[in-house]
């Protein structure tokens, strides 16, 4: 194997490692921008993973699996939305419960699928562009979910910061009382945001069980939902920084494997901690401007909205 193709292989695995984080984080970013803290990302993700796998096995089509994963993620998020937005339950506690529920539920549903070989989603080569040496296979011969993740980052950026819809979402997250008195339906906006987050988490789960390792393994999300949550905060709720953070985390976690394999004399524990350290440090440096950080943080994050009497 030539050096170049070696590098290419490493970069491909980095994309694979980063995509699920990016998908889940970009969804949660929108949720939190609307003022809702949904800690159930991990739970929604794993339910998406098992349902995506199950639907793919049943129909033979990974695309139907993807749709099923999104629907199940949305279903989980609706449960969260009903509890926190209608019944005003505590968002932190409810989010934790959603994660525990998702882990348990996926274990139960997935028991029948353990050990079954899955059907992998094939990459889609974009004509002409995909034959460009080196960057062609990297950027233009990917599966639909990788393309979707890039599309989502761009779309979320434009919607949040350039469109009226995004202005309303940010307004609801910044001051729900004022948004209400201006006549916006805080609950409705938050429901839609929470559902978007659920769909993205479902996608992230599908990526794991259909592409990353095309099979069902219990607990296969392995804490990625939590990392996605942390990325959103450290990225100070900015889409581009979420992209940087997700890829940085993915890159360092892959590179440290290679470093370990090549026999660098550092303790493996330290190496395994590297992705976390590197990501936190870089994102803190990016978001060090205190006034901007304050402006980016949704002021109503996690606060239940109780309309005026």
């Amino acid at each position: 194997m030539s050096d170049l193709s070696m590098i290419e292989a490493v970069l491909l695995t980095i994309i694979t490692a980063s995509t699920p984080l990016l998908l889940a984080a970009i969804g949660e970013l929108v949720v939190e921008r609307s003022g809702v803290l949904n800690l159930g990302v991990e739970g929604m993700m794993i339910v998406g993973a098992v349902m995506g796998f199950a639907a793919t096995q049943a129909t033979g089509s990974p695309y139907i699996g993807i749709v099923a994963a999104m629907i199940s993620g949305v279903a989980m998020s609706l449960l969260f939305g009903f509890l926190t937005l209608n019944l005003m339950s505590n968002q932190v506690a409810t989010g934790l419960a959603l994660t525990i529920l998702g882990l348990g539920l996926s274990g139960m549903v997935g028991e029948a699928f353990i050990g079954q070989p899955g059907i992998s989603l094939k990459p889609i080569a974009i004509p002409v562009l995909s034959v460009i040496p080196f960057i062609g296979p990297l950027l233009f011969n990917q599966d639909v979910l990788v393309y979707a993740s890039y599309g989502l980052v761009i779309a979320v950026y434009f919607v949040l910061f350039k469109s009226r819809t995004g202005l309303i979402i940010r307004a609801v997250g910044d001051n729900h009382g004022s948004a209400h008195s201006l006549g916006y339906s805080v609950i409705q906006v938050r429901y839609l945001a929470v559902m978007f987050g659920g769909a993205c988490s479902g996608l992230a789960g599908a990526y794991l069980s259909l592409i990353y390792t095309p099979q069902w393994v219990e607990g296969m999300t392995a804490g990625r939902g939590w990392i996605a949550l942390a990325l959103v905060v450290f990225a100070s709720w900015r889409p581009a920084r979420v992209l940087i953070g997700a890829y940085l985390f993915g890159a360092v976690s892959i590179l440290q494997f290679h470093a370990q394999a090549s026999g660098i004399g550092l303790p493996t524990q330290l190496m395994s901690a590297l992705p976390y350290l590197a990501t936190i440090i870089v994102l803190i440096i990016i978001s060090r401007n205190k006034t901007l950080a304050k402006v980016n943080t949704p002021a109503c994050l996690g606060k239940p909205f109780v309309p005026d009497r």
Partner: protein
Amino acid sequence: MENEQRSGPVTEGEDLIKAKGITKRFGDILANNNVDLVIRQGEIHALLGENGAGKSTLVKILYGVLEPGAGEILWKGKRVSIPNPATARKLGVGMVFQHFSLFEALSVVENIALAMPKSEKIKALSKRITEVSQKYGLPLDPAALVADLPVGIRQRIEIVRCLLQNPSLIIMDEPTSVLTPQEADQLFVTLQRLASEGCAILYISHRLEEVKKICHNATIMRHGRVMGGCDPAVETPASLARMMVGSDVHDISTGATEVRQGDVMLRLRNLSIPSDGAFGIELKDVNLDLRGGEIVAVAGIAANGQSELFDAISGETQVRDAYAVEICGVPVGKRKVNDRRLLGAAFVPEERLGHGAVPGFVLSENILLTRYKTEPSLIRHGMLNQKLATEIEKRITVSYDVRMSHENPEARSLSGGNLQKFVVGRELDRVPKVLVINQPTWGVDAGAAALIRQAIIDLARGGSAVLVISQDLDEIYEISDRIAVIARGDLSMAEPASAMTREKVGLLMAGMGESKSASMALNAGETHAH
């Protein structure tokens, strides 16, 4: 503002909005009881009443934030229902809230875009904002972030936001409570211009002087009912207050005219504090001697160093030079708040909810917070003496007439005026030797304000030293023996109230006292005992 500009009651205008028999109940409280209100086109209509009289409920119903339990609203003669603010805006009703409904993390233009009926390109909207704000003398930078703007400018955003919707009726809830006298005058010009263009204004205010000055008509509410209407021009502030309160507001008696000068209880010596951050004010060489038995008032426009001065005296900010602040002869510059309280000082900050009291704590717990050090019996073997705290709470709420829905409620459940009476009462109950109080009656109705001012005077006449920081000149002249003016962190010399004309105070407030020549010009013809 010339009084001649006021054109008396507007009778020729058509009825714009007519509310009939509006009733709204919250639990056991009838917030609005069969309320009638008529506003004509082009009039500035005052809505008067004490805190809790039902004014806010009524305007929220007119703006569609609340739905009335009974009654009907006629808009230009047609019966309408206003289920939400969007409907109100469509009809042509705009509102400027007392507590701003702005989004701090968004820019001016984004804030305004949110209130516009349909999508308009941000660029085009920015242009319109600039035009309208110039036209009405309310300059605004559309791209500025609200978080960076002072309150006066924030109010402008709300007003411009209203104006862009071409409203026929603008509701303003205590608009001048956050403005300097100059800003308020500027606002009155804008309001009069709007009224002359046919726009009606419903004006809620506690400041009876300004109601007299600009309003054509007034409706007075008490305990959820309309007590009647009047033409403010022919009334006096006292008669207006009487209608609001239902009885005469007690005239404040200042006690002995000859103030017996006691010892110096609070001494500031060359107190200087560098500013913190871009919006802070630097205190420069502040000097003051405050004697027992006297009330010294610090006048000044908002954000000229008042909070910095208060923090330095109370001990929230400590200074390098211990001798810069002396309480009862003890240098305390480096000591903390409780040490200063132990010397007999008491402090009432400006912001009653959040600073003066913890919103989610009941009143007795809020008493514990400022008094556990000065009253050792409040802590027994490391445990809170809740019983004693509750007794003190009862004593304070009775003697300061704090009205509450049940015994020992959470601080946040009290109305502004009642909470202020509690916060002031909590400190006065200790009979402190030195009292420092920032904005004692901000946003408080006439009855409560009179009670608080009388209590402050009584304390001073009992021999304590009182420093009142206030932006309300009427209040200052009513209660103080000497007046100092703070401008950009500079404190003028405290001089007898009788020697300080309003013109002089005004010039000092504007910072004209800084240059030697100005102060010499001011002092010309006056003699001082230095």
